[in-house]
């Protein structure tokens, strides 16, 4: 696939099967190092790397290497699943970690494959482009002596003079967008024509565009960022690092560059199907937000919904999820309010049964912790226990376990707000030593045993999960991909063909030979094209031979 051998030889009439990146350089048997001098070895290695066989192998290897990333959870896509997976497979986790299986697409071995592929690609494109540029300036080769050997050939005798026929042939070929040159003796002559030069251009465009796409993609990965934030309805979000629940910057991204955008979630509505077999399926949901592009900018309103993001210059905001936040008031053993406000619960299934944790470090005399479920439409059966039958909050209820003791929040180690560290906590028990469970409807209060305090379920709010991200280089990648498609179609569907017409004086008229050769690997329709061409060039001719 080094270019030199792919040069269209000017006199060749042999059907050249491959116009794609292909043939091996002649005289270099593949798979064996010929010389041993360092320069020769380098040249040999370069030829190996840029050979078609290697490129194919690398392509297939890339496909193979992409598989683990779809099977093993990926840290940058699903961090929670990764930690769950690690807990479930303590023996395998370190091995996987070392192999980079939790971030396959940034791993050294994956990068090695696509970098080699890119080098191989460049090693193809450069010489091929040079060859192509030269071939554009080369006129179509002269008619071979024996046209009858070509895959499509037709001989016709006519009464017309050779000049007339040749003129007509030139005109007809030009109309068919052939590049035409004429030559030959005075008593006749021949026309050589070629078309389909854009096939190779398409081929080159496709391969260059693939590199453009990769560059655009890498640019976005390195200089972009993606973060998520849960915002209660009625509350606001300001675009600074502290406001994010999760934040994944590209390697070269500086968080100081965050656009100082801010927004307030004014309202949120979710509508679900209330009847029919798909009951509970969401029909529509969206939030009305008021945003400012910069602190001094005019506030504007936007309806944020799935497929309807807020797109600003350097940042886009997407609505990616929603859920419930029960509002709780906790009084401690002294009767003081130790906590009052909404608690974000995370939906666990399509019915929005949600799990949440409340930590009350300010409670006296002992710290209090709670974990449990929120059911928007509560139901209970002996077989299933409590569950939610519908995602909308038609009959909300809360069911939690209570803990008392030390929440372990003073030890400095960061804790997840969705997990209780129960090492130094004890479950609150009833008098009969069974777990004390708080089952609450809105507006109700439950008194904890042993004078630990009380919990009131004031009501519920909704929250929305916003994804805030910026991916520079999108336009580069998209343009590259569209150009790749255009080039691909050119390289697949443009036919590269050569046609020769030779006219010789004979019996007071002319003997006309028309022959064609396909250089794009498929001779479909070639014979038909030649025969149609002959009909135009010699309308009243007498066909002698047709193959």
């Amino acid at each position, binding site marked *: 696939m080094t270019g030199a051998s792919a040069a269209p030889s000017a006199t060749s009439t042999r059907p050249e099967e491959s116009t794609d990146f292909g043939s091996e350089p002649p005289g270099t048997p593949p798979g064996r190092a010929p010389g041993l001098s360092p320069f020769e070895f380098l040249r040999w290695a370069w030829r190996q790397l840029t050979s078609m066989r290697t490129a194919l192998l690398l392509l297939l290897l890339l496909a193979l290497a992409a598989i683990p990333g779809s099977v093993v959870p*990926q840290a940058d896509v699903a961090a929670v699943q990764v930690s769950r997976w690690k807990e479930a497979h303590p023996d395998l986790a370190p091995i996987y970690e070392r192999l980079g299986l939790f971030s396959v697409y940034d791993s050294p071995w994956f990068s090695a494959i696509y970098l080699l592929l890119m080098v191989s690609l460049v090693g193809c494109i450069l010489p091929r482009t040079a060859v192509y540029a030269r071939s554009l300036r080369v006129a179509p080769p002269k008619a071979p002596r024996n046209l009858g050997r070509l895959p499509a050939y037709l001989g016709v005798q006519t009464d017309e003079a050779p000049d007339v026929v040749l003129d007509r042939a030139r005109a007809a070929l030009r109309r068919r967008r052939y590049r035409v040159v004429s030559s030959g003796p005075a008593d006749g002559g021949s026309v050589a024509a070629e078309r389909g030069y854009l096939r190779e251009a398409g081929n080159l465009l496709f391969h260059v565009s693939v590199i453009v796409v990769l560059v655009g993609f890498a640019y976005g990965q390195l200089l972009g960022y993606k973060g998520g934030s849960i915002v209660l309805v009625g509350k606001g979000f300001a675009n600074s690092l502290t406001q994010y629940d999760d934040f994944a910057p590209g390697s070269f991204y500086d968080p100081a560059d965050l656009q100082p955008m801010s927004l307030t979630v004014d309202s949120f509505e979710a509508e679900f199907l209330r009847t029919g*077999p798909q009951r509970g399926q969401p029909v529509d949901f969206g939030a009305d937000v008021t945003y400012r592009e910069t602190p001094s900018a005019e506030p504007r309103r936007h309806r944020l919904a799935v497929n309807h993001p807020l797109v600003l210059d350097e940042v886009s905001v*997407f609505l990616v999820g929603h859920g419930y936040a029960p509002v709780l008031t906790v009084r401690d053993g002294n009767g003081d309010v130790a906590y009052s406000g909404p608690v974000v619960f995370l939906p666990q299934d399509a019915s929005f049964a949600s799990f949440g944790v409340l930590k009350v470090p300010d409670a006296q005399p002992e710290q209090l912790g709670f974990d449990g479920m929120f059911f928007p439409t509560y139901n209970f059966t002996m077989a299933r226990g409590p569950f939610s039958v519908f995602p909308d909050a038609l009959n909300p209820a809360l069911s939690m376990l209570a803990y008392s003791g030390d929440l372990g929040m003073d030890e400095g180690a960061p804790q997840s707000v969705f997990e209780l560290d129960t090492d130094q906590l004890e479950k609150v028990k009833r008098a009969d030593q069974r777990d004390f469970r708080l089952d609450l409807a809105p507006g109700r209060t439950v008194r904890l045993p042993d004078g630990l305090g009380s919990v009131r379920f004031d009501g519920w709010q909704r929250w929305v999960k916003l994804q805030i991200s910026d991916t520079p280089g999108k336009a580069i990648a998209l343009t590259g991909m569209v150009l790749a498609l255009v080039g691909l179609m050119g390289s*697949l569907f443009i036919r590269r063909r050569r046609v020769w017409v030779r006219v010789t004086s004979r019996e007071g008229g002319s003997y006309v030979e028309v022959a064609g050769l396909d250089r794009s690997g498929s001779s479909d329709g070639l014979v038909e094209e030649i025969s149609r061409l002959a009909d135009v060039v010699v309308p009243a001719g007498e066909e002698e031979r047709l193959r």
Partner: protein
Amino acid sequence: MIEGMAPADVAAFSDRAFMFASIVYVLAVLGHLVEWASSLGTVAATRDRSPVGVAAGSSPAGAATTDAAVDDDRADVEERRRLRVETAGRIGVALTVLATVLHAAAVVSRAFASDPARVPWGNMYEFTMTGALGVSVIYLALLSPLRLRWMGLFVTGFQVVVLMLANLTLEQAAGPLVPALHSYWLVIHVGAAILATGAFAVGALTSVVFLLQERAQRRTQAPAAAGSNRVSRVLLERFPPPDVLDRLSYRLHAVAFPLWTFAALIAGPIWAEYAWGSYWNWDPKEVWAFITWVIYAAYLHARATAGWRGRAAAVLALIGFATLLFNFVGINFFFGAGSMHSYAGS
């Protein structure tokens, strides 16, 4: 037909049309089976006759007249057999046309079975149904220009299997789209994916037949196997020659590949950027769409280099199709919740 009908009635109509389409596809399979069985008989008869013919040549002159009469009789039998093959084949095609019409009715009415009407590819059941229709339509459209009669048994068999699986494992009642699919990109992205999948499916079918045919050719050419391999002979007789199949397969893939490129690597990322805030998320479905793309790209490269023509290229195309199927079925069932495309599943 749709006006004035409740969506539930239209949904019921769609289900019924789907059921009848499946039944008629089964009948079409039977038609093509008879066609094949009869042609097996034809070849058998041809083979049985040859030793008799040799015997006739070396027999005394007095026996010649009776032999001629026998030959006439045989030719007659042969003619009737050919007629039977032809008739059964035509019945198979006619039934396929009928089944396709019913199938199309099921797909179109499915679009109107939810309020408001929408594209009939909002979940896997509908995607399968519409994709399968695409295969039938491509087959029928190319039937006469490319002389695809030989494909009949395979296409109808494919339809029976696919529709049955769709009905047993994927069926979902008609209903409105989930909010994530409220976008015209659903029409563009999934529409292109359906077209590409249909073309890849017909291409894969051609590659399978190519492999069978190529093997049959090698077998009958092997001296040891001469005359003993009836099935191989039938294959050789009923299918186009391997090089024709190879070219046809390449052309189908050459059409499908740009479609797939558009669906998976242009329309998909644009929609993803719009809906998820990132045009490429390494979602399992994206990864496998990419794997499929890479393998078909390798196929086209391999095909363009002289050495990989034929068997190796066909195998590569089939591997590509396997990844496509896995992406469609496997991802939704095995990775269900982990994929952002999982709303398309059950």
